């Protein structure tokens, strides 16, 4: 360091400064992921109301579904289904509220043009949002899962731990990949995105079988398994976490569903990357990056 605050890392010329090695590019993108995740993680510590609203209340909501099954005198594994669904809801809500509509919000805030004017890949920014979001959601999911399991006496029967873990992580990657795709779409749609976020709540809970085995929905369930990471991931996890339950037939075995998740992950991440590039090109052509409210 030179001691002069206006000179940090001197370069010989603009041309020298503009040429980066592959390592520099990779490291910048990785650092971007960490940098963009940072506000989300710090945000949790800054403002504690989320403990009440994002952990306690969702736990109570999950409890309501548990008591519906109790009122119906359902077999005990159904309580487990609900608890697992309640835990995974955290990730879905995070994807639609804090991924899908985020780029649109960033634009209205004036951040988007700074992102595009910086040298990193915009995909890294979205990955950072996803990582930060996962940290937030994981805490909520873990609390719902652990507390509800203890309080309602859920018994898991897992034969294939590795596959269960793999399915869980694949579900997250596919979910957040979908979130990145939606982020680009929502940016294009603008203000309507807010309403689309609403549309992606209860209707998706229903078709994903959040509180019941999705196979019961017949063709609608099959369609959900083919399209929605939440539906296929949850179904696979239920099959794996409650291996001894009399699970309703009609959905593929967990190995096949894991493959579906792999395909979803690849497709969504590739699609997101392509859409973000297309979006940037369109936005630069049409002048859409910098419109703000003020």
């Amino acid at each position: 360091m030179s001691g002069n605050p206006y000179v940090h890392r001197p370069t010989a010329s603009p041309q020298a400064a503009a040429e980066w090695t592959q390592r520099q590019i990779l490291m910048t993108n990785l650092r971007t992921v960490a940098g963009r995740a940072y506000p989300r993680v710090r945000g949790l510590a800054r403002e504690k109301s989320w403990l009440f609203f994002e952990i306690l209340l969702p736990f109570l909501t999950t409890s309501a579904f548990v008591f519906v099954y109790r009122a119906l005198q359902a077999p005990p594994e159904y309580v487990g289904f609900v608890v697992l669904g309640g835990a995974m809801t955290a990730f879905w809500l995070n994807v639609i509220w804090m991924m899908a509509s985020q780029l649109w919000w960033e634009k209205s805030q004036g951040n988007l043009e700074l992102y595009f004017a910086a040298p990193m890949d915009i995909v890294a920014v979205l990955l950072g949002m996803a990582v930060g979001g996962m940290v937030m959601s994981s805490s909520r999911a873990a609390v719902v899962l652990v507390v509800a399991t203890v309080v309602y006496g859920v018994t898991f029967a897992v034969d294939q731990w590795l596959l269960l873990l793999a399915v869980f992580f694949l579900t997250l990657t596919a979910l957040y990949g979908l979130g990145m795709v939606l982020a680009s779409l929502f940016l294009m749609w603008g203000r309507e995105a807010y309403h689309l976020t609403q549309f992606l709540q209860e209707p998706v809970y229903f078709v994903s079988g959040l509180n019941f085995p999705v196979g019961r929905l017949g063709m609608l369930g099959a369609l959900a398994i083919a399209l929605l990471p939440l539906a296929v991931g949850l179904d696979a996890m239920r099959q794996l976490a409650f291996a001894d339950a009399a699970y309703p037939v009609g959905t593929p075995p967990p190995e096949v569903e894991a493959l579906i998740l792999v395909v979803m992950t690849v497709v969504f991440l590739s699609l997101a990357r392509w859409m973000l590039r297309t979006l940037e090109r369109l936005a630069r052509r049409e002048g859409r990056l910098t419109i703000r409210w003020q």
Partner: protein
Amino acid sequence: MSATAPLAIETHALRRVYRAKPNDVVALDGIDLEVAPGEFFGLLGPNGAGKTTLIKILTTLLLPTTGEARIFGFDVVHQTKQIRRIMNMVAGGEQSGYGILEVREQLWMFSQFYGLGSRDGWRRVDELIDAVGLDEQRRQKVSTLSTGQRQKMNFARGLLNDPWIFFLDEPTLGLDVSAARAVRELILSWKAAVPGRTVLLTSHYMAEVDELCERIAIVDHGRVLAIGSPAELKHRVQRESIFRLELDRLDGGTASLARLPGVVAASAAASDEGNGQGDRQSVSVNLVLEDDAALGGVVGALGGLGAQILALRKSEPTLEDVFVELVGRGFDDAPDASRDETPPQGRAANPQPRREDEPAEEELV
């Protein structure tokens, strides 16, 4: 920099047209600019002149419709990554960032976007916070900063990556006198630290442009109307010599001076001295002469009239005079629009009627 080094900014026939209803909008209409490395270059123009559109194109946020633009030899259309590694930008009234973060954290986040290592980033951030005078706000939440503090933080953000070229779009907009002065000093200090650092500044404050810029382009309706140093531009509008005289008396009024050879016009002006309120009595006269040589005749004639010259000043034109002369109106007369965010308020391409309003958000995205 060698003599053959690429220019810091180079544009050829740069044109940008926005599609809009009912008529397309021409924001830039064939801009040719050459800014040398190390130059402090200013863009002066009324609202909707195309200044911000030009900056958006140069900062790779917007594509030109036709024409070429290069930053240090890198093409703004195809070599965006290279340009983004060596430039940064700050706009006036910028509200970017995350209100929930502290100043230090917000800047660190941006440092990561420019590839600084985590610890290096924190060090750099602290260094810049001190440099811009935000020491006391280091741990303050961004949402609680004043306008001036926020702009200092934006400057710290803009300097994180040691840019070779800095784009400043109305950087002192809304700042009070001392905050604006601090920002100007900051820019000059940063620029002086490394030869070759280049600044492109747009501003509504003519005195600021006059003070900072080595060369200025006056733009309007997407065209460059004039280019040159502030002195050159002022000289361009000064076709006659203008003097201001303070006299103890002037029998016969200014008409007696207007008849003298070489005098283009003579008019009475409000006096700087007291007007019979117990102070010395005086008469102020503005004189427009064909050239300085005509002044001798005027002085002689005044002696003949029995008038004593108390003070004599030669008037220099200001950048505002230049602006009014070239643009045909002052900034205050310019169409009332926000800073020309894209799409701007330019000229309708075909057919001609001007479009002053900005399309609503929903039409654009």
